[in-house]
């Protein structure tokens, strides 16, 4: 592997890591709200979060490009704030990745929060724990398996994205040229050996992550069974 490929690996890890942290920070309150609310806008909010699951990445990328471009509202805001333009930058890639991977983080978290029995939170309330205290000391620990799933899926999905990256980020080495794009470029250049090295690595990585996740889930399932009286 040449230096450019290693740069792509490092960049991909940075993008996925940063996106995962942001996804968990944004996704947790959103998932908690979705899990607990009886608001009439819940179906709409849940649908918006799930949109990336059904839309072609190019559609999402296209609209993000318009929004974040020099004439778009987001683009004008970032320029007014002196942040520059987001398209074709690492920051723009992070924003796009967070939106694109949101359902993979919010949905497992929402399911984990929904599985927490109301009576556990009520018990905490009658034991003098206020709302934030209850969330931190009861809801978060009980939803821990959901956090693991969410983080793994969020990270892996960000590593695996291609269409949105190409639309928003382009192919700037060290800035937006992530692994999936690098593979594409090698193939375009008919450098199949280089493409193989990266592609096989990613297949191995994806397999490893998924096997670990399913194994964890199975063990948890067995535990849950043992816990039933």
């Amino acid at each position: 592997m040449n230096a450019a490929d290693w740069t792509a690996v490092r960049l991909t890890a940075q993008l996925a890591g940063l996106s995962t942290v942001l996804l968990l920070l944004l996704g947790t309150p959103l998932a908690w709200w979705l899990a607990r609310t009886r608001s009439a806008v819940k179906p709409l909010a849940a649908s918006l979060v799930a949109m990336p699951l059904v839309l072609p990445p190019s559609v999402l990328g296209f609209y993000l490009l318009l929004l974040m471009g020099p004439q778009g509202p987001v683009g004008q805001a970032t320029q007014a704030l002196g942040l520059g333009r987001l398209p074709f930058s690492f920051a723009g890639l992070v924003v796009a990745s967070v939106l694109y991977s949101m359902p993979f983080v919010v949905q497992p978290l929402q399911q984990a929060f929904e599985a927490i029995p109301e009576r556990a939170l009520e018990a905490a309330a009658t034991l003098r724990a206020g709302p934030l205290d209850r969330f931190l000391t009861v809801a978060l620990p009980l939803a821990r398996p959901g956090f693991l799933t969410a983080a793994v899926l969020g990270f892996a999905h960000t590593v695996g994205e291609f269409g949105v990256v190409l639309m928003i980020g382009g192919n700037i080495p060290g800035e937006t040229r992530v692994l999936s794009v690098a593979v594409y470029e090698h193939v375009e250049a008919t450098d199949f050996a280089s493409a193989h090295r990266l592609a096989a690595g990613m297949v191995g990585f994806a397999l490893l992550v998924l096997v670990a996740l399913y194994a964890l889930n199975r063990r948890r399932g067995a535990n849950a069974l043992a816990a039933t009286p």
Partner: protein
Amino acid sequence: MIEATLRLPRRDFALDVALRLPASGVSVLFGPSGCGKTTVLRALAGLERAAGRVVVDGEVWQDDARGVFLPPHRRPLGYVIQEAALFPHLDVAANLAYGRRRSADRDRIALDDVVDLLGIGPLMARRPATLSGGERQRVAIARALATGPRLLLMDEPLAALDAVRKAEILPYLERLHRALALPVVLVTHALDEAARLADHLVLLQAGRVQAAGPLAELLAQPDLPLSRLDEAGVVIEAEVAEHDAAYGLTRIGFAGGGLWLGQAGAAVGERVRARVLARDVSVARQAPVDSSVLNVLPVRLEALHSDRSTALLRLVVADTGVAAPDAGAVRLLARITRRSLETLALQPGEPLFAQIKGVALM
């Protein structure tokens, strides 16, 4: 004194109750499922937002007229529900510590006393998933007590347990009742639990209070729906008077008389609560001679209530023929057939003999 007026519209009925419960002892909210008793308890805890007012020992927990509503975590109470609801991610010790650490009132009660009272010392390092149903419920009660609450609310604490586990928990509940000067409000739909644990009884029906008062008084009222239950009967507060080891019998004594029953474990002088079911009591005009029934008490017929085939008699035990027995006098209920009632032409006020076939200590 616990005073509450609560109103809350529900799908099948409108909850509308005014309660005045004594500041000590166990008050039982009794009624069929769906009568609103759990909702009342949840509203007392602040888990349910009913309209009205809740004042406990002079402390205002809720007063809509003045815009006061303490959220549950600011009310000094303990709350125990059917399913225990222990935190599965914490061991028993950490479950106990959870509320205790957060409570400003924790010094009202020593943790060791709570642990001893409920016999959970050996369980401290265990996870809830490894405990039996009865153990879990004991830990849940201990966890609530460890906060040093001023009021303990219990919602069917025994309903999820089988008979064996129930028998395991009941003595702890009774000890709790005797050992701590802590008012308890307990919800149940089982009359035997109410008869065993209650000092004060509130009958709820479709969201309203049907009757409320001291347990013995309410159980002895032949015109309440309670008396139509098959297990209708009275409770008698008594003292163990003597044991007859030769025949395996125990005599309990109370103002105006005494009763023999199968040998009990309690020591002479100990206070006990006995239950006499209406179906185990019959009456006669003359003192029975050559009868196999050990327990015959002179009584006076106080009130009667009959329906198509049966009649329920309220009898006041009158050893000395007191003219106007006070409210503390021991009363019995007797269920007889309407035919017997009419054949004997029983009239309120007349002296009779009650023959009692069954007495159970609780």
